């Protein structure tokens, strides 16, 4: 049976993992390669790395940090931020990533999704979306709008229409990142996660807001997601007590979520 995935997400600035709240006020956590090595040893299922300032600073992604992280991570590794072309994607893959995450850039130039999927396969292209509840209105029938550039810019795109388009263009996975819930530890937005999972046939990843095991379990059951992105719960200094991957997974199994079993010796 295919199990559900627990994915650790890193927001990286200058080679270091940081932690934001609703896309703001990033505080420093640890060097990316150290945290990656620790979480790999703790048997995380997957790691996602966003170079969060590359896009705004109009520079290329920090390939050196990608390379250093990739050397410690023998589970899937996705990289995003500052990717503008198929050549950029190729550089990141050669640095040791398996998957490329596209977000704001894909909204501006949707063809990048098709070009990436044609060049490297659909499984390589993860469409990440920043969605916000705005209420159903003309042009936004689902009531969820897509935002870009660190949740600062509204696009006028309906979230469900955008993810369907992304799938058609060749995205192999969709990340639903709730702006309202990001860093709040109040749980994923299950309504939009479920709506996206129903709208597309590729795997869907819940993101933004996981504060406890119950939230993660809900995202993977009621939310209909195949994978859950967590960060604060694992390593945010704002949390009184962080949980290990092993603790999280055994608690998820108790909630009835199928997970990759923890190996006592590897």
């Amino acid at each position: 049976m295919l199990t559900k995935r627990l994915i650790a997400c890193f927001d990286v600035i200058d080679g270091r993992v940081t932690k934001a709240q609703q896309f703001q006020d990033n505080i420093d956590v640890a060097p990316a390669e150290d945290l990656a090595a620790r979480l790999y040893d703790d048997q995380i299922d997957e790691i996602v790395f966003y170079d969060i300032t590359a896009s705004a600073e109009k520079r290329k992604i920090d390939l050196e940090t990608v390379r250093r992280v990739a050397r410690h991570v023998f589970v899937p590794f996705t990289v995003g931020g500052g990717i503008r072309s198929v050549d950029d994607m190729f550089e990141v893959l050669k640095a040791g990533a398996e998957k490329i995450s596209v977000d704001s850039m894909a909204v501006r130039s949707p063809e990048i999704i098709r070009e990436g999927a044609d060049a490297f396969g659909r499984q390589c292209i993860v469409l990440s979306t920043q969605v916000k509840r705005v209420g159903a209105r003309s042009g936004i029938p689902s009531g969820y709008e897509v935002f870009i550039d660190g949740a600062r810019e509204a696009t006028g795109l309906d979230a469900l229409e955008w993810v369907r388009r992304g799938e058609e263009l060749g995205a192999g996975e969709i990340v639903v990142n709730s702006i309202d819930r990001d860093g709040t530890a109040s749980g994923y937005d299950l309504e939009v996660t479920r709506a996206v999972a129903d709208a597309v046939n590729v795997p869907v990843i819940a993101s933004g807001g996981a504060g406890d095991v119950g939230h993660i379990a809900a995202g993977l059951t009621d939310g209909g997601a195949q994978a859950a992105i967590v960060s604060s719960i694992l390593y945010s200094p704002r949390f009184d007590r962080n949980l290990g991957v092993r603790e999280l997974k055994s608690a998820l199994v108790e909630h009835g979520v199928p997970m990759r079993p923890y190996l006592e010796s590897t």
Partner: protein
Amino acid sequence: MIDVIDYRAGNSPSVIYALERLGLECRLVAKPDEIAESERLVLPGVGAAAATLDSLRESDLLDALTQRVQQDRVPFLGICIGLQVLFEHSEEGNTPGLGWLSGRIRRFDDGLRVPQIGWNEVRFTRSHPVTAGLPDRSHYYFVNSYYADPADPVDALGRTEYGIEFASVVARENVVATQFHAEKSGGLGLRLLAEFAAWDGRC
């Protein structure tokens, strides 16, 4: 020395990093004369079977690869698309494969969420030196929209369920291949790579 075949559509860096972590001597190879002298070969892969074969053909690697694996019988490990190209035919792009193994590559049913992405269980159906250190019913990382359907069931060394049961590990003589990404399957995946590195190609 383990030679990892390098081509544009591959994920060869990840395989190199994994072999380096195990302390194994390895290098990327991209020329026919390198493959002609290879002692041990890995064909990694992501993307589509046809694109992979085209890429190998354009780099003039196919003849050298076939000679070295099918005639000289050096140990060979295919990963993901490196498994799918071994069969006679793939439904992906309706394309012929290498035909080293009999059977076809088929697409998962439309009712399933495709690609299959994630950790799924492998049940080993017989013993083999490359999988000897792996517990039965253990989990590995898969990314695939197509699966192998070997004509000879003996070629299936491991089986996995996603809608249907399919051959997730195949082996015949000096060839072994995994549908899952051994280089991205954590400690057990690394263990399989270490066993492959020590294998003499016989079973």
